[in-house]
């Protein structure tokens, strides 16, 4: 907590222009990541997690998407106004990203080595030979055996877990300050998941890279994250330290998410799930976006927009009228556009 934030997202709004008009996929989202910290962003599919991460990289397809407002500060530099040229210098060098599908994130026609040295060649202006040596070092760092050999192999010769390690090696090759991991373990089986997570945690400590872990899996969050942001329908509904969120969840949505984790000791007929679906982005303009699915819903919830209210724990804030009396979190959530 003493560290200064490397990346600060302030009041980010990203919207998509569709035939129904402009639809906000990310609506007034603010969070920050400190040096060497692992921040989790959790939520169901379609809640705006991936759009948030692509917004940080400025890789939102434009059109139809656009960053409609807010700031993305990387060490104080606002990326929203950065040129495409500047963004290319930043991508892979200062902010790197790994994706959900390791099976399709590598070009099938080129060897692992050819793809690994790409970032080193672009950003560190290394020659072919030194770049290859560094690439081998990176592969060893991510725990791949026989790195010298793998570097000459093609993606189809590697398993999913190995490919994800290659992707991590690629993302970390230029020692970025921030690594955005968009569901890095979703496509892997459980044993490999655990290995990849412990590898990421390990590298986070070794290289002091801040990680934004985007996931729908609370187990992943519990394993690696220090702080967590829960998103619902494009808005942050709760944020706080992992202990607080797990031990003392405040928002009914977070409660629901935690309840939906199946417990092996509990022999229930049916597993718990939050009734209903994530609302279509842009369909709710007034009231709490979770109201329709909330078990504690009150009349006020349909008409009033809740703000992020701070709880008794530092850094723990929740967007729910039930916790209103505990006070408004800070000025950033009260900003109205």
């Amino acid at each position: 907590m003493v560290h200064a934030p490397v990346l600060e997202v302030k009041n980010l709004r990203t919207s998509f222009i569709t035939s129904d008009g402009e639809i906000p996929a990310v609506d007034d989202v603010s969070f920050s990541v400190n040096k060497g910290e692992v921040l989790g962003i959790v939520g169901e599919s379609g809640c705006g997690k991936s759009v948030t991460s692509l917004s940080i990289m400025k890789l939102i397809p434009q059109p139809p998407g656009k960053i409609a407002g807010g700031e993305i500060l990387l060490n104080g530099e606002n990326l929203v106004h950065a040129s495409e040229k500047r963004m290319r210098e930043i991508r892979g060098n200062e902010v790197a990203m790994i994706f959900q599908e390791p099976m399709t994130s590598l070009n099938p026609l080129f060897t692992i080595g050819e793809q690994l040295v790409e970032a080193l060649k672009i950003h560190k202006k290394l020659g072919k030979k030194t770049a290859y040596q560094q690439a081998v070092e990176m592969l060893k760092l991510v725990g791949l055996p026989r790195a010298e050999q793998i570097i000459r192999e093609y993606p189809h010769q590697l398993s999913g877990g190995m490919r994800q390690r290659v992707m991590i090696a690629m993302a970390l090759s230029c020692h970025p300050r921030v690594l955005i991991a968009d569901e890095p373990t979703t496509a892997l089986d459980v044993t490999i998941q655990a290995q990849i997570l412990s590898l990421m945690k390990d590298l986070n400590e070794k290289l002091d890279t801040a990680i934004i872990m985007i996931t729908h899996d609370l187990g992943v969050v519990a394993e690696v994250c220090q702080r967590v942001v829960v998103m619902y329908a494009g808005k942050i509904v709760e944020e706080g330290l992992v202990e607080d969120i797990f031990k003392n969840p405040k928002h009914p949505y977070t409660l629901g998410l935690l309840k939906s984790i199946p417990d092996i000791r509990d022999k229930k007929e049916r597993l718990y799930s939050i009734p209903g679906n994530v609302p279509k982005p842009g369909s709710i303009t007034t009231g709490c976006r979770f109201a329709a699915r909330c078990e504690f819903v009150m009349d006020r919830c349909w008409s009033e927009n809740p703000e992020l209210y701070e709880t008794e724990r530092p850094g723990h804030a929740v967007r729910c009228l039930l916790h209103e009396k505990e006070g408004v979190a800070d000025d950033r959530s009260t900003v109205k556009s």
Partner: protein
Amino acid sequence: MEISTQKQMQPPVIKAEEKVTSPWAEAWYSFKKNKLALVGTGIVIFFILLAIFAPLIAPEGINDQKMSVRLQAPSADHWFGTDDFGRDIFSRVVYGARISLWVGTFAVMGSIIVGCLLGILAGYYGKWVDSLISRIFDIMLAFPSILLAIAIVAVLGPSLRNALIAIAIINIPNFGRLIRSRVLSVKEEEYIMAAKAVGMKDSRILFQHILPNSMAPIIVQGTLAIATAIIEAAALGFLGLGADAPNPEWGKMLADAKQFMIQAPWTMIFPGLAIMLTVLGFNLMGDGLRDALDPRMKN
């Protein structure tokens, strides 16, 4: 599966280089197993060798006229017989391979280069660039291709070179559309996003990632297009819009022979057979390449 059979055949110690199988090497492996494709390739290679070594193979020149041996049936002296000027048809067919392969290959190369460029621009940049280029392709495809070729040759003036240009032009939209659709689908692949995420430039992404991944269908379509181009060249030659007088272009030979069709059928049969065989060869090879390169056909 391939790797494991290789392993069994080789001694236990395998060098790293030998184990690495690139996607191209795998395609070659499955191409080699396809008998028909090999026959096609054999035919194509046969005609290529014929074209290269024509001066050594052909017993006579292309325009050695001997009035004493006009319209003679095939014999030991003249394997394919002689035409109305007493020229040896075998020699002319052999030299004709040069013309047909040259026209076919270069016309298709021209269409691939121009078509790829336009297709990439349309597919990658989209918006009005795409609309403009795609509409031009649509207009070109609205004409029956041979009519369009005739019109182009009519404007440029009849000659072999202009026939080649005309054939190249009429095939541009086929390649353009193919590349455009490939670019559109490859563009959405996750490795393109991953390449962007490491800070790669658009132009580099296009030529390093998108183009190589669009190559397989272009190779297939290109091989098949050579066959069509050869037929089109022969058609233009037949119509008197291609090669000029003494050149032994197969289509032109057919046209010259048509008045002797009844009394000297060999003047027509052998150039016709040559066209048919080359086209068959390229088609078989193209089909084989499609089976080997098209991932949807793999199982």
